[in-house]
């Protein structure tokens, strides 16, 4: 089986190919100009991240700007990977603000020169490039988006105390969820049980903080919601690997996630939890996790 190359760091803006063959997503990813048929990369087995690109389910590109918006869209570029919850934070923030941008899917097994230049310190996605200037770290990017496109609905509240609470909880999500969640699918035996205990504790802390509010920020969808909601699509993976039920441990959090999914910015960005689970399945193979 041969796979299309993504060596050109393809862009999906305004170049959607009409063909719908076996891999419609790959057609979306291909640039109109790209004629590369270097499909097997010299017979070398396809790297895991190529597989991740293929696993990317078909979805409309994160934002298809009107042709007249094209020049403005070029001024804002997001380097990202479809499944990344950190990248999704940025996509949601941009969508909430109605910002036109160009989305570039990165192949992490073959990082583009643009990525290496934009984030030389960490060489990681997401990176927002605004008028040629790169901004790195997802929560730094979300704050930047909030400050630059300040006429849209605010992501961080104006009141200093409420803002401090939002930053505190955004930082909590950042420190806890991904690290502990990763241990749930990477580890076995006692270490897994330890991770499960910790993860449930994290869920309960977040559940208590949310309380009966519509969103973490109250009535308005905001910073903490954006920081956490991409992980809503990972709950299925975490609970399946960990052997527990998120809904049983944190029903309010699940209800909150469903409310967030009613927002277009979220539903257009998050992928089906089963797709995330499939992706993690490949990660497990790569890391030799049984």
């Amino acid at each position: 089986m041969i796979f299309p190359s993504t060596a050109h760091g393809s862009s999906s803006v305004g170049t959607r190919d009409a063909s719908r063959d076996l891999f419609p997503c790959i057609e979306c990813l291909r640039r109109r100009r790209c004629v590369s048929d270097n499909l097997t990369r010299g017979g070398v087995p396809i790297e895991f991240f190529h597989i991740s690109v293929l696993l990317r389910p078909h979805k409309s590109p994160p934002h298809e700007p009107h042709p007249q918006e094209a020049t403005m869209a070029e001024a804002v570029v997001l380097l990202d990977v479809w499944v990344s919850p950190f990248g999704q934070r940025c996509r949601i923030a941009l969508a909430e603000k109605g910002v036109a941008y160009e989305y570039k899917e990165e192949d992490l097994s073959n990082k583009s020169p643009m990525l290496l230049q934009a984030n030389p310190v960490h060489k990681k996605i997401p990176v927002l490039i605004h008028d040629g200037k790169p901004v790195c770290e997802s929560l730094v990017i979300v704050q930047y988006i909030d400050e630059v496109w300040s006429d849209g609905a605010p992501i961080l509240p104006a009141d200093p105390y409420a803002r401090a609470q939002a930053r505190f909880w955004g930082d909590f999500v950042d420190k806890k969820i991904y690290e502990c969640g990763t241990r749930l699918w990477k580890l076995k035996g006692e270490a897994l049980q330890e991770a499960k205990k910790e993860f449930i504790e994290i869920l309960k802390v977040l559940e208590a903080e949310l309380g009966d509010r519509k969103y973490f920020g109250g009535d308005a969808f905001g910073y903490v919601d954006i920081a956490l909601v991409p992980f809503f699509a990972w709950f299925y993976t975490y609970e399946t690997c960990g052997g527990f039920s998120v809904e049983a441990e944190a029903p309010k959090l699940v209800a909150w996630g469903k409310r967030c999914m009613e927002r277009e910015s979220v539903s257009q960005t998050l992928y089906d939890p089963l797709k995330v689970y499939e992706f993690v399945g490949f990660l497990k193979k790569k890391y030799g996790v049984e």
Partner: protein
Amino acid sequence: MAAVKLIGSPISPFVLRTMIALSLKKVEYELLPEKLGEKSELLLKSNPVYKKIPVLIHHDRPICESAVIVEYIDQVWPESGYGAILPADAYHRALHRFWTFYVDDKLFPSLVAIGKAETEEAKAEAVEQFRAGLRLLEEAFVKLSEGKAFFGGDQVGFLDVMLGCFVVWIEAMEEVLSLELLEEATMPALHGWVVSFRAHEAVKEVMPESGKVVEFFKMIRAMRMKAAADATN
């Protein structure tokens, strides 16, 4: 009753960050040090999530996490004292915040690793990692300072505060472990920055004495070594 209270003492670099910020703003506050090895009721009540210092209490409402506290201080007292801590434009704010993440996630843990290293090999590795981090900050300083004294330019800015709080600890560890961490030869700009930072009035007000930090470092090192020896017996 003081409207502003701060739980912690300046021996902790994270508490020192918040004290530098309060000093820059010339805000009066009551300092409530914790006893080593014990956590007060007030701390446990004010920071139930992490149970750690610093905690700023303003009008009886707690704010936790040093970076969050410094941004809060800057927002509540925007024009006081030496003026704004966060840069005026969004892009520079993003850069200061990015490098603060780097300091907290990469640089500080490598500094801790130097102190905790049990073999010469482990120590050498940790030292090299730390120096590599400082070299990145040297480059960042040259870009951000644009020839001026601080990361914030003419004024002490956010990254100055977030990194500067470690200066006295770096110096203490250099003395106790007989190492050079902030190498003048390879990091001349940062070396100059340390001098300017230490000389700033607001920083001098709150910076702990080097001797005290050296003693404290020696004490916790001795405690750690004793605990390790007891564990193997």
